[in-house]
């Protein structure tokens, strides 16, 4: 297990460390990134004006739209020759999200992800199997790196089907399963159809990532395998998993505030929320060098709970993610904006966007995006064969571009919202 006193000596020292790191991050962002220099100048603020942590509220926000506008390298704070990894994800705006890492960033990130595994009780003797969809490739790689850094034996994600994955899990004596809540439930269903039971496996715990976990689903997965459950919170724009991780004593997550500064703001006004109030999570990076983010608005609604935690971890607690303050939603852990679906439909239909409706549904544990497209005169002109082709092409388009599974139905009239 982890000795937190080694990691974080005291609250006072942690806060000085945060201030030091915040100030050097602001100095670097202002010096190296044109976007931040202009943003700070527009708000008539200099990095030296931020003299304690609460004063961070004086700085302007960074949004997903800013990331998209500065595509691809506009927010990098080091020259490209210092960047050793350029990571992309589809993102939720017009352009993909591009995050750069220096060799030092990767080392620190691996250590942080390893710390998250250690806090969950994962050690060198564990066999860690990672089963994630192709849309979560970045998460899969980071989790693999972190578990390897820890010294565990890692079975990285692969394109084996679920039945084969279960075979591997049984035969390789996997002790830690890393997957999404949806996949975990689906694996349980596949397990039942194969006639396998929990006793056939050596599984001790599951680390469930990328999707919110309801108490009912947690209970179902824990009971299905007789295992303990740990979770993690992370977002691709701010490195990924290991940002915050679950604690055995509480719902919610411990936030790695020695390397990232969390704030909760009122979504409508941007003003700091009162302690314990639900608001939007805003994150500032403190340690990354290639891609510093200042007051990045995550869109996730949650709380910060400053009270000490009985587990002994001094890191502040993030409550469960209770929703979003924008239109972005998650399909099996992959974030999607409704405009992205509308754009996809327009592309398939050569510029025509009929009325459509999006709904999430579950089948055998897996999450699908159900898209109902209302028939109109433009679409009616086509033959039935073509209509089938439309839904097939849209499904493929979403799978290839966003990595999500969808089901498309062309309907006479969109069913009323339940």
């Amino acid at each position, binding site marked *: 297990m982890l000795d937190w006193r080694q990691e974080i000596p005291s609250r006072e020292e942690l806060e000085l460390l945060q201030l030091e790191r915040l100030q050097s991050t602001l*100095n670097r962002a202002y010096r190296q990134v044109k976007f931040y220099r202009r943003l700070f100048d527009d708000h008539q603020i200099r990095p030296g004006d931020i003299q304690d942590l609460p004063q961070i509220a004086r700085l302007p926000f960074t949004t997903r739209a800013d990331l998209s506008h500065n595509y691809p390298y506009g927010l990098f704070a080091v020259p490209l020759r210092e960047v050793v990894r350029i990571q992309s994800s589809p993102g939720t705006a017009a352009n993909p999200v591009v995050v750069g890492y220096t060799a030092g960033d990767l080392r620190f990130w691996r250590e942080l992800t390893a710390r998250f595994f250690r806090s969950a009780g994962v050690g060198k003797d564990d066999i860690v199997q990672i089963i994630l969809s192709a849309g979560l490739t970045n998460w899969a790689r980071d989790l693999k790196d972190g578990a390897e850094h820890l010294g565990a034996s890692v079975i990285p994600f692969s394109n084996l089907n679920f039945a084969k994955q279960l075979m591997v899990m049984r035969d390789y004596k996997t002790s830690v399963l890393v997957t999404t809540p949806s996949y975990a439930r689906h694996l349980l269903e596949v397990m039942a159809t194969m006639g396998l039971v929990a006793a056939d496996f050596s599984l001790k715990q599951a680390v469930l990532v990328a999707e919110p976990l309801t108490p009912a689903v947690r209970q179902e997965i824990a009971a299905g395998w007789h295992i303990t459950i740990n979770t993690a919170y992370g977002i691709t724009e701010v490195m990924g998993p290991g940002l915050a991780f679950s604690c055995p004593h509480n719902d919610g997550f411990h936030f790695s505030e020695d390397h990232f500064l969390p704030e909760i703001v009122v979504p409508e006004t941007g003003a700091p929320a009162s302690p314990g109030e639900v608001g939007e999570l805003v994150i500032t990076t403190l340690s990354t060098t290639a891609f510093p983010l200042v007051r990045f608005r995550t869109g996730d609604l949650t709380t910060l709970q400053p009270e000490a935690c009985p587990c002994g971890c001094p890191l502040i607690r993030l409550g469960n993610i209770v929703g979003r303050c924008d239109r972005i939603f998650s399909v099996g852990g992959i974030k999607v904006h409704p405009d992205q679906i509308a754009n996809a439909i327009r592309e398939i239909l050569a510029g025509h966007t009929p009325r459509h409706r999006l709904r999430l549904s579950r089948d055998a544990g897996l999450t699908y995006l159900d898209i109902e497209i209302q028939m109109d005169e433009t679409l009616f002109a086509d033959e039935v064969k073509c209509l089938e082709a439309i839904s097939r092409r849209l499904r493929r388009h979403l799978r290839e571009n966003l990595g999500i599974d969808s089901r498309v139905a062309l309907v006479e009239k969109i069913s009323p919202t339940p």
Partner: protein
Amino acid sequence: MLQIRNLFAYYGQIAALSGVSCHVNQGEIVALIGANGAGKTTLLNAICGLVHARGKVTFQGENLLQVPPEGIVARGISQVPEGRQIFAPLTVADNLELGAYLRQGRRQRQEIAADLQWVYTLFPRLRERRQQTAGTLSGGEQQMLAIGRALMAKPRLLLLDEPSLGLAPVIVDTIMAAIVNLRQQGVTILMVEQNARTALSIADRGYVLETGRVLLSGPAAELLHDHQVTRAYLGKDYKEFTEGR
């Protein structure tokens, strides 16, 4: 042990420090690195009360900014200034005894004698040359003397300003070994260096300063490893900065 928050210092209209925050833990060697004019020496002088500064400097819980320089020495902080600044016409032994000028009283005399022996054990060269005038010493020996003199004040925190300046590489190694040795004997060290590689190779942590601001901080090994990144931040000053002179 030492905590610095938002330190600002000016020479006339020119800002030498623009909001520096940093800390030194008990038993650490911390390196402040950066090119000429980055504000490294100003930071040390502000800690010692030699430069007027605004902000917060706390040493073992006590605010130092209102304390006069001799009071700061009495609280356990000694500085080894850049360019040694030893008293050239005096002997080595006299220079060392002057380092203990704040320690008076009969009992202190015995302790001072013991500390003198400790400094001689640390730097045997000084014992050999104890009757020689300081001005006749080599550069390396003068640096040893300057450190020895600072140690005579029994500091808990030793501030070193450019200890490798103008010394041959082999002498630099000796000085660095002595600094590591000092840490093992319980002295905490904050060191300013332009020669980043040398400083980071013995330090636990480091801060990279530029024009009075901290640009990077972290474990020394990490900064040493990331000298590419350091170069990115320091631009053309980099060569002068890490490759020694």
